[in-house]
């Protein structure tokens, strides 16, 4: 397949994944704002915006963190090139550019999703409609993922689609965990308080992991077991370990198809060492924040290496 197409597919799935994760984070944030007072609500919206890495661009346009402003900015504003709508649109533009590498099912799922969202988001978004819009985002990206799973050949194209998905998901999960842990706890004194456990609950919700976590850790809610779950539990589809198992598999298939390993395989093995055979104590001994920062940067290096080895751009 063409290097340009591989790039297009890889990024199409990254955008789709990021749109969905942004929607999840907004849903969890929105829920938090409803359970606390108005003052705290603005704080919560601020935390959503900084978790998404949009703080500086947001503050260029608004000087408050009202629900209406945040919802509109994060979900649809033209001022935000990383809005949910913009990312869905980028995914769709990429799909269009790679149209002949996708099945009709996948293309139609993306195209219809984009049409539905564009129509829903024609006018500024009110907080009252946020829930509906976000559930549509999740449903549409679920449909695209299902179409991918059910109709695409397991060939190179599929491997790049999966690689894009899990590079992005690993990045997003790590960021959510890092921001919540490192930036958002006002001080160590809050550890173990109601606010603390509320925040953790929120992290789990942002990653749709609250049910699985409850089932595994009846009643307990502490930083260590949550970090253990989100980083090391390879049964949970948004954990770092799960994402890396998928990456390992797809890069292995790619190198088998190409008849040789690349620098990307080596980088992946290195990154794997940080996850496999480790316990959550090892991670906390080093420091969770340091661990996550290192993970995010090595994840980026891996994406870069895939792009180079498979001639995405030159």
């Amino acid at each position: 397949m063409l290097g340009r197409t591989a790039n297009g597919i890889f990024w199409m799935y990254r955008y789709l994944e990021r749109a969905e994760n942004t929607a999840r984070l907004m849903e969890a944030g929105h829920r938090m704002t409803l359970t606390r007072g108005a003052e705290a609500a603005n704080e919560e919206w601020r935390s959503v915006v900084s978790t998404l890495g949009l703080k500086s661009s947001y503050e260029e346009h608004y000087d408050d963190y009202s629900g209406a402003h945040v919802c509109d900015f994060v979900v649809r504003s033209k001022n935000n090139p990383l809005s949910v709508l913009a990312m869905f649109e980028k995914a769709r533009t990429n799909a269009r550019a790679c149209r002949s590498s996708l099945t009709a099912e996948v293309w139609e799922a993306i195209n219809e999703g984009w049409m539905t969202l564009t129509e829903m988001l024609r006018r500024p978004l009110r907080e009252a409609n946020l829930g509906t819009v976000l559930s549509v985002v999740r449903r549409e990206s679920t449909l695209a993922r299902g179409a991918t799973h059910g109709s695409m050949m397991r060939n190179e194209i599929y491997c790049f689609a999966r690689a894009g998905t899990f590079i992005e998901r690993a990045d997003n999960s790590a960021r959510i965990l890092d921001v919540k842990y490192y930036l958002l706890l006002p001080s160590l004194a809050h550890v173990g308080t109601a606010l603390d456990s509320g925040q953790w609950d929120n992290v789990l919700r942002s990653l749709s992991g609250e049910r699985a976590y409850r089932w595994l850790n009846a009643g307990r809610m502490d930083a260590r077991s949550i970090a253990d779950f989100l980083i090391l539990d390879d049964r949970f589809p948004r954990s770092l370990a799960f994402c890396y198992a998928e990456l390992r598999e797809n890069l292995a298939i790619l190198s088998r198809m190409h008849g040789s390993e690349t620098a990307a395989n080596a980088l992946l093995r290195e990154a794997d060492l940080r996850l496999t055979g480790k316990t959550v104590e090892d991670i906390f001994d080093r420091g969770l924040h340091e661990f996550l920062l290192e993970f995010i940067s090595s994840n980026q290096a891996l994406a870069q290496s895939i792009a180079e080895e498979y001639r995405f751009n030159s």
Partner: protein
Amino acid sequence: MSEPANFDEMSGPDGTIRPAYKGYHDWLSEQDGSWMRRKSFEAESLFRRTGITFNVYGQEDAEERLIPFDIVPRIIGGGEWRRLSRGIEQRVHALNAFMHDLYHRQEIIRSGRLPERLFRSNTAWLSQMVGFTPPGGIYNHIVGIDLVRTGTDEFMVLEDNARTPSGVSYMLENRETMMAMFPELFSRVKVQPVSNYPRRLATSLAACAPACAGEHPTVAVLTPGIYNSAYFEHAFLADQMGAELVEGSDLRVVDGRVQMRTTRGFKPIDVLYRRVDDDFLDPLTFNPDSVLGVPGIMDVYRAGKITIANAPGTGVADDKAIYSFMPEIVEFYTGEKPLLPNVETHRCADPDSLKYVLDNLEELVVKEVHGSGGYGMLIGPTSSKKEIRAFRAKLEAKPENYIAQPTLALSTCPIFTRKGLAPRHVDLRPFVLMSPKGIDITPGGLTRVAMKKGSLVVNSSQGGGTKDSWVLDD
């Protein structure tokens, strides 16, 4: 103006249904009107969902627009089609021979049948093609011949598209849509299939591969990219042929071959079905600012290491001044009288014709010789005095830039409107493939229809629509 009496494809002047439409008409009369209206609406959402869109230059908010689709098919009888195809085949043979001659000995000019100035002033003429024969001797691999009809046996050629005829994806999707919406109709009326066109195209292109190609030549479709008005068609054809859809940035000349950058490195291409204009094909040879093409591709081409379809320089034949000589061209190269006539054409370069045209602007259709897509033309009978005055000035300033034709009583075919069937003007563009193995014409083609009452402009860029075109299997 008084409406000229038109030939209607479905019914005669006394209301009798023509034989080709009998089966369809019987079926239609059994259908409920409101159900048909729903179907008509359904067709549009079907097209939008599958993404069959069309970009119109200069319309920002309508970046991706649908070409209106009408659910009443244009139907041609089997016998009628056989006669038409013989005429089309003859014309395409002549066009190819003409191209070869123009770029070699120019016998037709030596014999005095074609004035030399015609192609000297033709911007599509490429001196780089002189003395070079493309692989297999084929210049126009894919041709679209635009036909219009004025009576039972009166089909005429309105235009030849030997550069890059577009619209074939609509021919295919229109049929798919019709079959999805009216399956029972197709079990009642036997229609010759068109769905194998992509396979025929792939076979035909592979048969034109250069000598260096292996047993299974690598075919790729070159597109200017997703913002091109026909991008959907490029992707569609590549997909249907199982060929790569490439852009200029994917291609590079490596080891004397044109190669595409794949995830495994560079891979040679044998046949390039390019949907990029000559000007943009090779920045080293033509437009140096082009980013759509491949630097050095013309050298590879001239070394016989790649087939470019259609060959650079074939656009000469799309010129409307050349068109006016097609009867002579067909006769010169085939030794036969043309089976398909031209529309009577006045060349404004010729002073007597110019005088006639200027005296009769209100009655005529005047076109630019290099124009296409319905841009830059005057339709006398439907233009205001002011428009005619403005056009007269342009014509007088540069008469050799124009030809004129009578305003034809184009045939009509009913379209489905909210108020029931209503006649609208149509044309027909059959698609023709040519390789050393012969000429292959897909039965039917693309019927374009003017959606506005009385309008004679069928171009999609000007609001025209399309219909499924049937050739009966009888």
